[in-house]
């Protein structure tokens, strides 16, 4: 009963989000995100009759659909990167150098496992495969968030909502998939509801932040923008070293 209620609530919230996006003409701004949402909506709606009518098929259907959602999730991360850094070519360049490194670092574990076990793909357990893919997403999201924080990239409310909502969902999924087998009986009965509840929470965040679309704030005013990078970096380095020397000179 609780599972069905959560399921229906999720469907309702996903529908509300898509309807609001169509009404507000927001689809064009976040195409991949709304495509992802539409796919999840179709998946959830079509899996419901399968769950009640052919429960033995449901398990397989769910996992195959879920892999599509995971793949599209990577697209959402890419869209966050594109939209957030479109006005910051320097930070975007840094992201292009850092993110592939994180991607290779995170995927190398999957390949190492696949290499050691020929039966690994599609997974010794499907849970493990999904978790490994979610870890890749998490590494990319973590890299992006760190980069945004380092360069103090101003983000609009809607983009912030997409990013944090998705990060929370991915993080909870990883925890859920990792610790599902290690719980005692007292907590295990609650475990199947944690992920759906987290998803409802994330949908509520998205509803709140994406209810209306904010127009872009053109606040990027910098008197030093035209300065070429080399002289900018060397001036900063000079100042940093001067501060370092000043510190030692005063204390010595």
């Amino acid at each position, binding site marked *: 009963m609780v599972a069905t209620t959560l399921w229906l609530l999720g469907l309702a919230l996903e529908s509300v989000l898509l309807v609001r996006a169509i009404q507000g003409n927001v689809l064009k701004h976040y195409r991949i995100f709304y495509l992802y949402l539409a796919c999840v909506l179709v998946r959830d709606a079509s899996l419901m009759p399968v769950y009640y009518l052919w429960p033995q098929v449901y398990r397989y259907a769910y996992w195959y659909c879920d892999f599509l959602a995971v793949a599209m999730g990577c697209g959402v991360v890419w869209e966050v990167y594109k939209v957030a850094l479109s006005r*910051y*070519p*320097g*930070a975007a360049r*840094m992201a292009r*150098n*850092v993110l592939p490194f994180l991607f290779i670092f995170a995927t190398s574990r999957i390949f190492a496992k696949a290499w050691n076990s020929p039966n690994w793909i599609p997974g010794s357990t499907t849970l493990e495969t999904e*978790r490994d893919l979610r870890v890749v997403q*998490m590494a990319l*999201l*973590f890299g992006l*968030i*760190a980069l*945004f*924080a*380092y*360069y*103090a990239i*101003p983000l609009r409310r809607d983009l*912030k909502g997409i*990013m*944090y909502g998705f*990060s*929370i969902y*991915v*993080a909870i999924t*990883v*925890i859920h998939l*990792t*610790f599902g087998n*290690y719980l005692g009986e007292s907590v295990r009965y609650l475990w199947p509801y944690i992920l759906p509840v987290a998803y409802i929470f994330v949908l509520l965040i998205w509803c709140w932040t994406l209810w209306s679309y904010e127009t872009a704030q053109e*606040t*990027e*005013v*910098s*008197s*030093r*923008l035209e*300065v*070429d*990078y*080399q002289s*900018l*970096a060397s*001036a*900063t*380095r000079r*100042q*940093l*070293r*001067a*501060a*370092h*020397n*000043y*510190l*030692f000179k*005063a*204390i*010595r």
Partner: protein
Amino acid sequence: MMSVEAYFLMAAAIALAVSVLFLRRETRRSFNEERHASEGDASVLFSWDQLTSELSARIFDREDSDFVARESSGQIARSFRMERAGLALDWLLQVRKHVNLLMRAHLRSARGNPGLKPSGELRLGFEFLLFQVTCGIFYLVIWLVGPLHAAALVGYSLKLAGQLRKMTEDILPDGTQVAVELLENKSQAKNGTAAF
């Protein structure tokens, strides 16, 4: 097996915490964006001039402390040392604040600069981290032993580092020196003044 699981949980928890922290920080920053912009530009022009250096050095100088110890009771001298420690810590925080503003101004300019070099940014980031670590160590040492002993400790450490460097130079063959000697021999040969 469980250690791998713990690794995943830790990574997920960090990601979650960073998301929340960043959300708070970003909100605060967007409120103060304009103020930071003006402060940031001002920090770039900040210079560590002679007067500032002398005044700062005075905080860590023994002279005042010795004078107070000589001319007053032990309690006053102790309270003076505590005041000095507070002053030194405040000074350190001010220096750190200026450097943070400088770095923030740099990042604001760099993020929109299409010519950004990732290697240059990483090097700068490393130097900034080194500065922060130095500040942290100084803060801890001042807080623990006071500015006078901290100054003595820093002086001793620098002296030791200098001696170690000198020892290393003496032990290891100096590539630069050899190169210079070779160049000198070459130019002497060209001028016809070679030994052979």
